[in-house]
């Protein structure tokens, strides 16, 4: 079984991939230098010119981009071309403060959808398949990315978006979906709901699932595979670099192949920025090789992982990355949504609370639980239970509008949340994802 969408590149000898990368990086750096003043400034500050970049080996000379740069340059500062060439935007699930808007030309959409198509084909997909896309559609990249990839492969595409599980199941069973794309926690939830409705795993026609946008474990994979009767494949990506499909899993299920003809990956020491040799654990950095709308060079993902060029039994030559093993910042991914403790702090202060709080994240029945314990200030204290519950409800609403997901709020007595001399332990993540 050889499942390639673009075999000539996916299985090309490493030297060939390298050649393509070298050719592309020279052009991409010139393009960015000429079109993105923000990055040109960074290069000038570092004393680098496009002439210094002759191959991917020279990428290490380029300055890094971080999420802070993206925020500073918001909204148009990192745009790579005239707006008339842009056909779409996508945005991260953050807040005003943390939101990232990425721009796509038709060329960018095409290469992104190719990447997603490779992922679908690697999971066994073809034009014979019925692909149910239940990632969220809209600003989130998940829905559009897999939807576009599914079109390219020629699957019959079910643009379900997320939620409405009864309807998901009805379409899945009635139309006979063979591939499902969603977050792993939603896949697990669908599996549970199917069982509750009395379906056996063999009752559905699904054969594969492509799951990403949040961290998940090997145990969760096994559970999903069992409950849906499928093979579950991981997919990786971020809005900054396009969306899902930057890397995808093959039938070997031992890591994700990075689409190296479009994205150059480095592993760096998150503290020093030094490039680490293959096999080292460090922060993943991506350089887009042929993007037009939002061409990011050396973008620091903050995801910690390991790259490996070990020969893969699937025949692909693309380098493989492990699942992210952690983060080099304090970002949490809860139910697929990026959450920073600083956002929670902002809401608390705005709503009249002290910044003494504790976040507890856990995973129960494969769904993330999200609880915030916050001290009740004297001004908000009431002898009436109803009023206290209103405070909790209001805080939940304020959090939901800031974060996109609503935590369960627990009011606790003042001075009861542990103070710390050094760095306060604000987050207790019990999910054991890494």
């Amino acid at each position, binding site marked *: 079984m050889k499942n390639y969408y673009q075999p000539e590149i996916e299985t090309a000898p490493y030297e060939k991939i390298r050649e393509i990368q070298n050719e592309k990086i020279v052009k991409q750096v010139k393009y960015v230098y000429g079109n993105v003043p923000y990055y040109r400034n960074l290069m000038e500050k570092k004393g680098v010119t496009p002439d210094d970049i002759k191959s991917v080996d020279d990428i290490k000379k380029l300055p890094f981009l971080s999420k802070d740069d993206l925020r500073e340059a918001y909204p148009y500062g990192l745009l790579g071309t005239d707006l008339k060439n842009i056909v779409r935007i996508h945005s991260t699930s953050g807040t005003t403060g943390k939101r990232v808007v990425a721009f796509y030309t038709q060329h960018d959409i095409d290469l992104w959808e190719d990447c997603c198509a490779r992922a679908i084909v690697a999971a066994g997909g073809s034009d014979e398949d019925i692909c149910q896309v239940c990632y969220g559609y809209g600003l989130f990249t998940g829905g559009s990315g897999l939807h576009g990839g599914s079109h390219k492969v020629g699957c019959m595409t079910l643009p379900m978006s997320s939620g409405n599980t009864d309807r998901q199941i009805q379409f899945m069973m009635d139309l006979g979906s063979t591939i499902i794309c969603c977050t792993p926690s939603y896949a697990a939830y669908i599996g549970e709901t199917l069982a509750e409705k009395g379906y056996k795993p063999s009752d559905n026609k699904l054969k594969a699932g492509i799951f990403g946008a949040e961290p998940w474990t090997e145990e969760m994979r096994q559970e999903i595979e069992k409950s849906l009767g499928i093979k579950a494949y991981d997919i990786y990506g971020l809005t900054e670099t396009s969306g899902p499909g930057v890397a995808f899993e093959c039938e070997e299920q031992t890591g994700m192949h990075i689409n190296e003809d479009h994205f150059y990956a480095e592993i760096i020491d998150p503290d020093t920025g030094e490039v680490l040799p293959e096999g080292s654990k460090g922060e993943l950095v991506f350089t887009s090789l042929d993007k037009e709308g939002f061409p990011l060079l050396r973008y620091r993902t903050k995801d910690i992982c390991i790259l490996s060029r070990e020969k893969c039994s699937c025949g692909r030559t693309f380098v493989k990355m492990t699942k992210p093993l952690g983060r080099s910042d304090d970002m949490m991914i809860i139910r697929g949504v990026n959450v920073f403790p600083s956002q929670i702090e902002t809401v608390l202060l705005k709503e009249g609370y002290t910044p003494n709080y504790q976040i507890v994240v856990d995973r129960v029945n494969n769904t993330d639980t999200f609880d915030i314990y916050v001290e009740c200030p*004297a001004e908000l204290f009431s002898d*009436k239970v109803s009023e206290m519950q209103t405070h909790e409800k209001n805080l939940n609403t304020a959090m939901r509008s800031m974060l996109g997901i609503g935590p369960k709020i627990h009011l606790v*007595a003042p001075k009861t949340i542990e103070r710390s001399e050094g760095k306060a332990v604000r987050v207790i993540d019990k999910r054991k994802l890494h």
Partner: protein
Amino acid sequence: MAITQLSAFLENTPGTLCETISAITDAGVNIRALSVADTKDFGILRIIVSDIEKTKAAINNDTVVKETPVIAVKMNDEAGALNSVLRVLRTAGINIEYVYAFTGAVHGNAYVVLRVDDVEQAEKILSENGINTLGDSDIASFLN
């Protein structure tokens, strides 16, 4: 004539109530009436005490304490007494947020604490209907 109730935010954990009550005991304050509302995460202690200032001083600084005017109605300790009070309030359309009862030292008397939003209005209605309510001075003097 409303009386002052103290309420305190308590963690819903073993020993919290005891700690607060011990502090009040050590200050030599007598608790006339008490009620605790509980939720999953926390409790709200509500007390009527013989000395408000002493109580506030005794309770740990870190505990959030609030004063609220509530109505203490004096009734005969007999069947139907509370019902006739409640009927009066119902007729007047006054909503009771919560209620708790206590008995006094004088045999035959019973008391009920009523938490309403409009204390003035409730008192007026009660008094028009010949129902007696207590004031802070009554609480401080009786039973001491």
